[in-house]
């Protein structure tokens, strides 16, 4: 790195602070918006991706996994007849109302699964046990939502759709994209909570036999059940992500926020780098006069941009991590995986170099004869 690039940048400390503030603001905005977007992607379909299900059989017209409608539970027997199916169990996912001890109500998503197979049940229990769900009125919630649901200890009772529910365990990492937390219970309890008939389910979830080919079984199921729709786990996850993240506009909004951050960053950094270049125009003229090539001038300006990006990124990534940590207690999950954090550095460099384009043009077009003006 050239001494001139470093020293010119550090010489005017006020301008450096303004430049870095612009970069930090832009990068934090981009990181948070991208993190929100990734959080949306993660939470919108985590119930599907962590289910361990191979195929989902649903009533027709399903918009997303949280929007299923009732279908006869006996369909699972037809499903079991299809070659390649190892297990077929009823599964419920639907919205309900959770009554807090204070009397206030919170929307929840009741997840009813078959306790024997465990398909679609909680992936990670941190307190209590799945077997406890065999007891009457027992439910498991995620530890993240204890405060929201007013649960202070295991064994505490509440009401779901005016029916008693007793908390017997906590899961971890089962965050919901909607503001409604997941509440796990046995299939039988879920029928009651969701006011389904005894012979109704929302889904029939399928586990394939070893060696069975997913697509082939799916085709066979569709042929056997013309009144149902069949999705692979991947299709169901994507259908759900696509609905919540894109159709509702939530994902687009966050991506637009990230793009806006990038734009703000480019404008702020471009303005400060341009102002710095204008201030140093005579110096660039001197450099040209004493023999510097345009390439050398590019180098000085680009190095300043990269240095600004590095300094700005170093602070921004720390601020972004603090925001991510602070958001852990909130409803919206913000994810900043190492790959994205590293990619953000590339974006910072790209942003600062783009921002310096006008300055490069200005500096390289300078008439070196400027040096002879007193």
């Amino acid at each position, binding site marked *: 790195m050239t001494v001139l690039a470093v020293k010119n940048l550090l010489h005017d400390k006020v301008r450096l602070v303004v430049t870095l503030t612009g970069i930090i603001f832009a990068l934090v905005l981009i990181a948070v918006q991208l993190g929100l977007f990734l959080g949306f992607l993660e939470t919108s379909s985590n119930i599907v991706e962590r289910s361990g299900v191979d195929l989902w059989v649903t009533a027709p017209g399903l918009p997303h996994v949280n929007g299923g409608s009732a279908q006869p539970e006996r369909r699972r027997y037809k499903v079991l007849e299809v070659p390649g199916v190892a297990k077929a169990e009823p599964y419920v996912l639907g919205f309900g109302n959770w009554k807090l001890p204070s009397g206030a109500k919170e929307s929840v998503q009741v997840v009813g699964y078959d306790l024997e197979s465990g398909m679609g049940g909680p992936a990670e229990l941190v307190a209590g046990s799945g077997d406890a769900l065999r007891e009457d009125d027992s439910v498991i919630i995620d530890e993240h939502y204890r405060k929201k649901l007013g649960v202070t200890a295991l064994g505490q009772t509440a009401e779901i759709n005016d029916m008693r529910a007793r908390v017997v365990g906590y899961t971890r990492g089962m965050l919901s994209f909607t503001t409604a937390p997941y509440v796990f219970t046995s299939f039988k309890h879920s029928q009651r909570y969701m006011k389904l008939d005894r012979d109704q389910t929302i889904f029939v979830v399928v586990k394939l036999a070893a060696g069975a080919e997913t697509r082939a079984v799916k085709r066979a199921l569709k042929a056997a059940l013309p009144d149902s729709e069949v999705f692979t786990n991947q299709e169901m996850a994507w259908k759900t992500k696509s609905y919540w993240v894109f159709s509702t506009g939530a994902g687009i909004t966050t991506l637009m926020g990230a793009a806006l951050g990038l734009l703000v960053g480019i404008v702020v950094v471009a303005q400060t780098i341009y102002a710095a270049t204008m201030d140093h125009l005579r110096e660039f003229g001197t450099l040209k*006069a004493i*023999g510097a090539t345009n390439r050398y001038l590019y180098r000085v300006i680009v190095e300043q941009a990269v240095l600004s990006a590095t300094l700005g990124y170093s602070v921004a990534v720390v601020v972004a991590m603090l925001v991510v940590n602070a958001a852990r207690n909130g409803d919206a999950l913000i994810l900043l995986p190492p790959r994205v954090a590293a990619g953000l550095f590339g974006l910072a460099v790209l942003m600062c170099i783009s921002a310096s384009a006008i300055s490069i043009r200005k500096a390289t077009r300078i008439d070196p004869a400027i040096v*002879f003006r007193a």
Partner: protein
Amino acid sequence: MKTVIEIRSLEKSYGSGAAQVRALEGVNLDVQAGEVLALMGPSGSGKTTLLSIMGCILQASGGSVKVNGREVVGLRESELPRIRLTHFGFIFQSFNLFPALTVRENVAIALELRGTPRRKARRTADRLLADVGLADKVTRQPADLSGGQKQRVAIARALAGDPQIILADEPTAALDSASGKTVMEILSSLAHDRGRAVVIVTHDPRVLGYADRVVRIADGRISAEAEEQAA
């Protein structure tokens, strides 16, 4: 003496059509190694334009300029930095030092442009600064120096690539008489003791005492009777 710059029928005009201004017209001039040549004339006479063309900073509109035997008129813009770097050292009226750099770095940068490794450039810069009497100022910032000291830093920078030709634009204009005298003694010594060609554009009559030749320019022309041997 070797001719380092040979100028023939030089033309320079700005603008076009009715708005065209002819800054230089039919200029013929030779600059020899080992001489101090003073270019004098009123403001707007074309002396700085002539200096800029000599130093390949400005392109001529016509005629011929040879630097150490190489024709530079008509060269591509991208070829000129190399010519400037190889043949010329520049000294400016306003010193044009880099305020963010130390005195040493101000000189070393001219060497780094020539591809000299940083450590060697710094060592050479220290030697050049010692030559102009600034050995004790190498780590200072230009803002800490007097005008005369700044101009001596500029001279050290101009000498960084060991160029054969030094072009100076009003080098004493911003200096008091003592500093101006020191600067002129250094420039004179560069020509007379070290064989450099030193071309100085000046209004300052103090420079005349150090010049081997004085070329007077008026309205973009060198008048033959104005070219005189300095006393």
